[in-house]
């Protein structure tokens, strides 16, 4: 087998990003949309780690830690919004939530 290079990681990251974007754009369930956002952020992390390995520097990994922090905060706030939304509107389907649409 050919040795693994940085571009291998980049292509895995690209595929993960596209799958996550497809989930965000196409699914109706808000919980699955939040999960797809986690997929996108993980694709970013794979990119950062790949370049951290490529350059032999550890700063990319520190950046990945910040990305993980933001992802955790996003999940907590997003799920809080979801629970408040379900309590008030009784639905978790993204296209049934159209209070601001006229």
């Amino acid at each position, binding site marked *: 087998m*050919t*040795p*693994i290079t*940085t*571009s*291998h*990681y*980049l292509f*895995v990251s*690209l*595929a*993960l990003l596209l*799958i996550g*974007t*497809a*989930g965000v*754009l*196409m*699914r*109706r*369930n808000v*919980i*699955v949309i*939040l*999960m*797809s956002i*986690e*997929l996108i952020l*993980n694709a970013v*992390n*794979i990119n950062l*780690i*790949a370049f951290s*390995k*490529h*350059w*032999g520097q*550890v*700063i990319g*990994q*520190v950046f990945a*830690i*910040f990305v*993980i*922090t*933001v992802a*955790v*905060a996003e*999940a*907590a*706030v997003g*799920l*809080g*919004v979801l*629970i*408040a939304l379900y*309590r008030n509107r009784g639905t*978790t*389907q993204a*296209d049934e939530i159209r209070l601001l649409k006229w």
Partner: protein
Amino acid sequence: MEALLFYIFAAMTLSGALLTVTRRNPVHCALALIFSLLGVAGLFLTAAAEFLFAVQILLYVGGVMVLFLFVIFLIHLEEAAKQRQYSRQWPVALAVLAVVAAETLVLLKTGLGSLPPKPLPRLNAQGNTERIGDVLFYQFALPFEAASVLLLVAIVGAVWMTKKREAAE
């Protein structure tokens, strides 16, 4: 061996991600996402990021996904699982995705050629975790504190939003 591990973890990541996006039941989606995130953790391990491997498993698989599963159990999703799963705009979404994929592939193709070959000193000369700690606390001390403030705001916001309130008169 290293290549084999990489392909195994990449297959875990991508198959889990595909199942996450396509499954009907949100619990199955969450379990597939756990599988995918474990694959990402394995990719971190093959890229010599041992500390992030541990963080990924502890935080994502142990923390975030448990949070997701709790919320799924709090919300009745039975009727949502029986309804249509994809929104009506899916052809537009696929077109946008194709454009993004083409653009990124072109960028990768042109960019990878000009990427210098790796200098590759050993990444873990004195231990991955020690080096991350050094960089995090010396060079990135201010962003570190900002991240802690961000987490505090997120905690307070999440608690405030999920609190039951009396209807305001």
